[in-house]
């Protein structure tokens, strides 16, 4: 496909805050891939993106991406919150001006959600400012004047719990996009004879995966995908599960619906949880139906609840909505990037911890913790320079460097969220 794939954000990114403070919705992992990776795997080209202005430099997108419309080829505009990319097949050979609209609208107003569209550069120029400003509703209204719409309701990320809800299905769907030369059927691996496997035909491993027996890989309920990771003895992995390159599973119970992103360390028990990347939950403790961002560290015995004793549905604080009933019986916590939780912290179901928060010395953490919060018994604002200094140290341990653009993103988010910490 020659079309330029262009990811845009609409108003809906707000209902995914604080997870989307430091990344676009297209960079949230759900299933094996993020949307950006999924499109790359499906269409063989790295999609371009128009992120929020303060994220542009850190994402290498440029502050004012004029070049995106400079090629004389159609533009496939894709909403960053899209999960199920099968609907894009409707656009691959569709006439210019075809617009996919979903009636699933998490902004609570307007005429629907702009899911994707196939546009000429000229038509894209007519909504360029709208998509730079995350005004999906305005862009949709304009495209409906000039194009023709297809009503479709693909799975999208509307609220944070959709990540957890969709993860198992996305892992299963993403298996078809795996590179068959990178992931081989498990029984082709030289060490396969030592593993205890159920439904081995649904287990795919990287040739460099280091899996030490005794280990149980149970793919009866869904596929298991293991990259160039290390699985230590006495681990139990129940599909659907994806474990990315560079991660370490330390005798953990990794239950169905879990994705472990690149370079993570996982111990204890984890279930139906997405760990974005570079995060540690290395010790005992349980995380279920949760999302952990990048560079998160969880102390020993820190645990989240994912089920109320009353078996009632769990409420979550959502930006712009306040407390929202998720309608889910099982829901854990949502930890944004750079969150650090000390030892023995207990989190209620539906807890949301903001970017860069450092929580310790508390038995039960509050349900909603603003970004850049420091403390436990008493909370204070985490000084941004100290927070960045710590983040640099943490990243250096994984041979990563925080560049100035990334540090600027954190500073920007710190300023943006200042009012959230006023009540401390």
């Amino acid at each position, binding site marked *: 496909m020659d079309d330029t794939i262009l990811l845009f954000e609409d108003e809906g990114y707000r209902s995914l805050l604080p997870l989307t403070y430091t990344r676009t919705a297209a960079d949230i992992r759900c299933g094996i891939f993020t949307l950006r990776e999924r499109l790359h795997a499906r269409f063989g080209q790295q999609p371009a993106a128009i992120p929020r202005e303060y994220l542009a430099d850190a994402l290498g997108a*440029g502050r*004012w991406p004029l070049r995106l419309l400079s090629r004389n080829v159609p533009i496939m505009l894709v909403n960053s919150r899209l999960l199920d990319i099968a609907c894009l097949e409707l656009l691959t050979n569709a006439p210019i001006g075809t617009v996919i609209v979903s009636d699933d609208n998490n902004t609570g107003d307007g005429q629907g959600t702009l899911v994707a569209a196939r546009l000429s*550069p000229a038509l894209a*120029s*007519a909504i360029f*400012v709208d998509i730079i400003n995350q005004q999906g509703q305005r862009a949709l209204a304009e495209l409906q004047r000039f194009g023709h719409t297809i009503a479709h309701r693909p799975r999208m990320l509307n609220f944070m719990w959709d990540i957890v809800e969709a993860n198992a299905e996305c892992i299963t769907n993403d298996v078809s996009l795996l590179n068959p030369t990178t992931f081989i059927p498990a029984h082709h691996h030289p060490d396969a004879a030592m593993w205890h496997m159920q439904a081995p035909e649904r287990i795919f491993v990287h040739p460099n995966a280091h899996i030490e027996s005794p280990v149980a890989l149970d793919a009866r309920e869904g596929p298991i995908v293991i990259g160039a990771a290390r699985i230590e003895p006495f681990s139990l992995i129940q599909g659907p599960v994806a474990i990315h390159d560079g991660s370490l599973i330390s005798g953990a119970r990794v239950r169905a619906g879990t994705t472990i992103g690149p370079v993570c360390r996982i111990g204890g028990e984890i279930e139906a949880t997405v760990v974005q990347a570079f995060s540690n939950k290395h010790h005992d403790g349980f995380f279920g139906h949760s999302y952990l961002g990048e560079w998160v560290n969880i102390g020993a015995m820190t645990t989240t609840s994912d089920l109320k004793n009353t078996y009632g549905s769990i409420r979550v604080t959502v930006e712009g909505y306040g407390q929202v009933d998720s309608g889910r019986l099982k829901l854990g916590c949502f930890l944004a990037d750079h969150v650090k939780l000390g030892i023995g912290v207990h989190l209620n179901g539906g807890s949301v911890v903001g970017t860069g928060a450092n929580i310790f010395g508390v038995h039960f953490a509050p349900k909603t913790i603003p970004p850049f919060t420091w403390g436990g018994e008493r909370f204070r604002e985490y000084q941004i320079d100290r927070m960045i200094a710590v983040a640099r140290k943490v990243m250096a341990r994984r041979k990563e460097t925080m560049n100035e653009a990334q540090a600027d993103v954190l500073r920007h988010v710190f300023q943006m969220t200042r009012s959230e910490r006023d009540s401390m």
Partner: protein
Amino acid sequence: MLGIRRRLATLEHLVKPLALAFLGCAILALGLGYLLTYLYRTLTLPPIFYYLTLQFVPQMWRGVLFLLVGVGTLSAGVWSLSNKVVIPINNDDRNDEVLLDYRRVDRMPRVVVLSGGPGMLVLASLGRTVESMTCVTPIQDPVEYYYRASSLFNFEKVVFVVPTPQPIQVSFVLDNGQRVRPNDRVSQNDAFAQRYVVDVQLDGETTVDTILVTRMTIESIAAADVIVLGPGSLFESIIPNLLIPEIRQALMQSRAKKIYICSIMTEPGLTSGFTVADHVRQIVRYGGFAPDYVLVNAQRIDTDVQRIYAAANQTPVYLAPEEYEETVVQAIDRDAGSEVVVEGAVVVEADLATAVVQLTASLDDPGKSRTVRVLRHDPDKVAAAIRNILRRGT
């Protein structure tokens, strides 16, 4: 409540000095109190002091009264100060600067440009000093060309928008009745050297009533503080968009300052023999409005350069004295009392051009490429001239 908190937050860097100042005031008041008490007890005061010192009010209520008035005065002072103090310029504490009694800068202007490719690139440097700059491309042009050219320069705040999603071709009727189109490159054909356009029309079956204009085009014109027409080919880059009624209507209704940047040289086959007034007349004819200002190059052109242009059948577009003898009317611009007005547009003459060496190449015969000295609108000079106009009153 949030507004009050935000306003007071501007004082956060003055908390210590203010607290120290208040403490000083309190100690001062205490000292004054002791002194007055001493004087009151040692001196015999006239009876009027009984009333001045509120002795008819019980002592406790007197204290409460003074406390309330004091707190009220203090709050009013802090509130007033919070509006005169701004937050630090730099996040780095060591480089903090605090401005007292600052004045908010005026909002930067929103600019709309109607021009062709090179003209828009000339003006794009304005993008650094504006709130937004929307360039409406000619209806017959592909927008990719503009994005490709501008992406080389890393322009910010500049967007290019098509007036209609589908290009619409235009054609010109020349003074000899012949019909040509922009793609015919009449300006490079000696056969048309002395010709000029007498009419511009939308091509083929296009009917103006059915044309849907992009919302961004209309909204940006409506919200603009300045609308710049040109620089660029009058008939190829500016007039075509004026043929669309919705755009014409938006331009006429806009309260923005409208500035037309007149061409430096005539274009053979299009504007041969045209004067400044002829150019402005075409804007009035097709746009239905007169620009508020017309920017004219006043720079003396070297005879060498003139000779090159003459060989290509081009002559400078100056404001001829006999022309404004015919067209001078009372200036409406309070700063332009002594300036010339042509067809309702205040003429602003300025040095707008720079001679540059340009390589011309032929796709048909690449071996025929050659370098020539040509005059081009200078981005910095044009931007400066526009900024000068913006500084004028309305």
